């Protein structure tokens, strides 16, 4: 398919594309990232090193990549979706053999200049390939069983590989993100209802299987779930993270203890305070006002993405935009739910804020795709 297949009145070209970028989203992303920089500076005890300066560099690289991706026409991305997904699958298999172990899990391949986390990459390519699939599939076939099994397999394959690493958080994100795209594409309600029922069955199986030879999760994952269900029964052991996170959050109050005044993070009571638990530091130092403002920034990003998707007549572009927005939503919602004690600790970073290279890069590339869809949509 070519550009001419689209019933377009006007599509920008050349440097004019820059004008048609989704600027509100860029501003919001930058604002969220800046909040992250401030927090990393504070957590380092008022120092740009070791985290803030590195994070700014990555953000800069990511923004350049994002604009770069945005400049490339969306149909190019659609056309390479399947290939990109295939590559990330291969890489996922690759980490099984060449991966480095970190935090008790195989997660990355060391490329020398950076650590590549194929699971991060898969988060985008899965959405891409599903969006392309439903773009290709005639709408009347969407809900036919055969055409439903195909995307399910596409989702389950990387999910299974990620679960093997083991990375429960990412696996759940892949599963939910993929299901969201299917849902948006118009797959019949009944499928989701039955999957939900099966999910409940699976949860029962997970708990029933505990301690037997066919137990489905690792012991530490069971412990995390236990801790989530009742953090108080082990406040110094497994429940320590959640308890301390809640203390940090709660002690922030309305307006927080002030920039660089958070005792919980400064005195190391918080675990992984610069990565997964960075939100607690923010909430401690800037209080409810700061935490809620960050939440609103995220909501606005989603809002502008959805708005862009709803005005996009291109099925791939709309599905991709909504898929990325949904994945993004899942990232911050799961992270916030986790640190506020609403969800178990599954190791999901706060998008754009937590310290971490590949998550940031992957996310900005994803937003590059969203921008590409936005720039190249028919007007």
């Amino acid at each position, binding site marked *: 398919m070519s550009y001419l297949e689209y019933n377009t009145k006007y599509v920008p070209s050349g440097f004019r594309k820059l004008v048609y970028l989704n600027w509100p989203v860029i501003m919001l992303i930058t604002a969220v990232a800046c909040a992250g920089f401030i927090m990393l500076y504070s957590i380092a005890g008022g120092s740009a090193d070791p985290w803030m300066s590195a994070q700014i560099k990555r953000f800069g690289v990511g923004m350049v990549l994002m604009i770069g991706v945005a400049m490339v026409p969306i149909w190019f991305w659609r056309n390479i979706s399947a290939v990109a997904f295939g590559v990330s699958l291969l890489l996922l298999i690759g980490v099984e053999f060449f991966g480095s172990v970190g935090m008790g899990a195989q997660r990355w391949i060391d490329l020398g200049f950076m650590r590549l986390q194929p699971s991060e990459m898969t988060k985008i390519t899965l959405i891409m390939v599903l969006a392309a699939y439903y773009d290709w599939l005639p709408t009347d076939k969407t809900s036919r069983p055969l055409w439903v099994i195909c995307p399910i397999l596409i989702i389950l394959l990387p999910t299974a590989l990620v679960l093997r690493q083991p990375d429960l958080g990412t696996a759940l994100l892949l599963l939910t993100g993929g299901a969201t795209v299917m849902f948006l594409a118009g797959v019949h309600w009944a499928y989701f209802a039955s999957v939900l029922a099966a999910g409940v069955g699976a949860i029962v199986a997970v708990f029933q299987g505990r301690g037997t030879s066919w137990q489905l999760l690792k012991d530490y994952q069971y412990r995390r779930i236990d801790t989530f269900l009742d953090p108080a029964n082990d406040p110094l052991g497994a429940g320590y993270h959640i308890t301390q996170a809640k203390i940090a959050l*709660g002690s922030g109050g309305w307006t927080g203890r002030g920039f660089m005044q958070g005792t*919980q993070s400064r005195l190391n009571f918080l675990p992984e305070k610069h990565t997964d638990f960075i939100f607690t530091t923010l909430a401690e130092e800037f209080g409810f006002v700061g935490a809620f403002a960050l939440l609103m920034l995220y909501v606005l990003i989603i809002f502008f993405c959805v708005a862009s998707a709803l005005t996009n007549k291109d099925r791939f572009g709309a599905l991709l935009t909504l898929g990325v927005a949904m994945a993004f939503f899942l990232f911050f919602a799961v992270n916030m*739910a986790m640190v506020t004690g609403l969800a178990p600790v599954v190791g999901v970073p706060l998008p754009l804020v937590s310290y971490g290279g590949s998550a940031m890069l992957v996310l900005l590339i994803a937003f590059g795709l969203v921008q590409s869809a936005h720039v190249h949509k028919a007007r």
Partner: protein
Amino acid sequence: MKRKTRDTEISARKIGRRALVLGAAQLGIVGALGYRMQTLQIDQADQFRLLADENRINIRLIPPARGQIFDLNGQPLATNEQNYRVVMVREDAGDVGEVLERLTKLVPLDPENLARAMEEMQRRSPFVPVTIADRLTWYDVARVNVNSPALPGITAEVGLSRVYPWGADLGHVVGYVGPVSDYDLSRIDDQDPLLQIPKFQIGKTGTENKLERRLRGSAGTKRIEVNAIGRVMRELDRQEGNSGADVQLTIDARLQSYVQARLDNESAGAVVLDLENGDLRAVASAPTFDPNMFVRGISVADWRDLNENKYRPLAAKAVQGTYPPGSTFKMVTALAALEDGKVTPEETIRCTGWVEVFGTRFHCWKRAGHGNMNLHESLKQSCDCYYYEISQRVGIDKISAMARKLGLGVKHDLPLSAVASGLAPDKEWKRTVHEQDWRVGDTVNASIGQGYVLSSPLQLAIMAGRLATGRSIKPRLVRAVDGYEKPSGAGESIGLNENYLRRIRNAMGDVSNHSRGTAYRSRINASAMKMAGKTGTSQVRRITAEERARGVTRNEDLPWERRDHALFVSFAPVENPRFAVAVVVEHGGGGSTAAAPIARDIMLQALYDGEPPLDAYPSGARGRIAEQQRKIRERVPPGSRGKDRA
């Protein structure tokens, strides 16, 4: 393939609808998150703020300096000495082994302590200071400090540790401190948070223990901020505590030291009582122990030696030991009979060497008998038969009442570990304790301080003091606490007939000043210092009729545990008594030979407030006394034994 426009529009509408459904779900989740934040950060903010502060703020106690103990003249008896120690912080040391090797060349390190310190260092966080060497000299510390660049992680610290400059001389009186134990905590009802400090030193025995509350002082506090692994980040504020109150005892350390020296090689107790105010000038028990040994941490061998020694060095015999008072009790029996009108001072009773009471023969110590005895002669020569007779006339209850009036069989309130109440038996007591009726034979036995009667040297000194002054003198050991003087123990009149008392005193004067007195050989020659006294020899075994028939075995031929106790009570000067002295020598033999000379020497030392001139002694004894004084002088000079370690 060209896609139809309609197809796209239908799909777009469908995507829009589904997107709105998802958007609504998302808004719901965002709402839940916002509500959660509100709950935690606004509704429960105060509670979590408190928890955060509990996390980071630790309250540390600052132990106060323990109050010091002084003697009457301001000599320090228990004081705090700066104690230098070397501590090591593992994380600052780098190569621990290397640093320790260098340290070994500078200061003496005990390998056992070193191993313990290494083990502790491995167990605890790397930033926790661990004591490597304790009780170092100033020179050791200086060497460490000079070489500090080569000793990373090593610092010299100063602490306070308890020192008893007079060492063993006051071991039983002052006692010692030691680290608070679980047993202590279970035994004492004390909420003082200081006791929760590991190894906090509290008084274990003696006045250190009895005056613990006053000596301890109150804790200061400092609030410190710590991080998650307990490292101290900064001190937020501090509130100083109050150091413990200083205590002044009535003890005269120099006299006490002399008494201890004089009792050397005996198992004995001696008490010197100031008759002006009841002050205890010396409370000595021999053998004794060095309390410093306990503060430093007593070795197993030393502890076994103290515990298994048959002379019981840990027992404060002067206040804790109870002995049959023997003939020193005769004043009690005499006064009881006199006050009751059952005998007059002039009445004579014939001593034939024994008395038969309901078929049992009670013997006088003098087999041939003393002949006719009145009160004066019976005391002077310590005739037993006289007391067998008058005690039967007056009865045990009145004798016991008199004993208690004179301070026997009564627990005196002193801040010492174990103050014995002794025993002044009466009919009621025997019925309660032995469930038997009192028999006349019991009274006869008690009349000469045998049988059930028990008293401590302290009680005997008080008895002598009350007889000498006619006042009910109360012993006082603590002169002042924190500068406030305690009430004097001078006491009111005891309410006894002054005429009888004078006769008793005269008789006691003749005991040591009349050539037929039992303690004549232990008299004081200086005319202004003449001493009155009474000897006592109390049996610890029963002499059978058979043994009496063949001749009573001499003390020297008996094993130590079966020899008689030697006792002597005294006061001086006779005319204007200033001191009362009681001496009990366990299994020492006769009171006149074993106890009286000691009491006389102590009395002279007290009267002259130092070494008496030789002409205060009877001329025949001077050579021996001079030799004895020289020996005592040659002991390590008192007051320096605690300090010779530095």
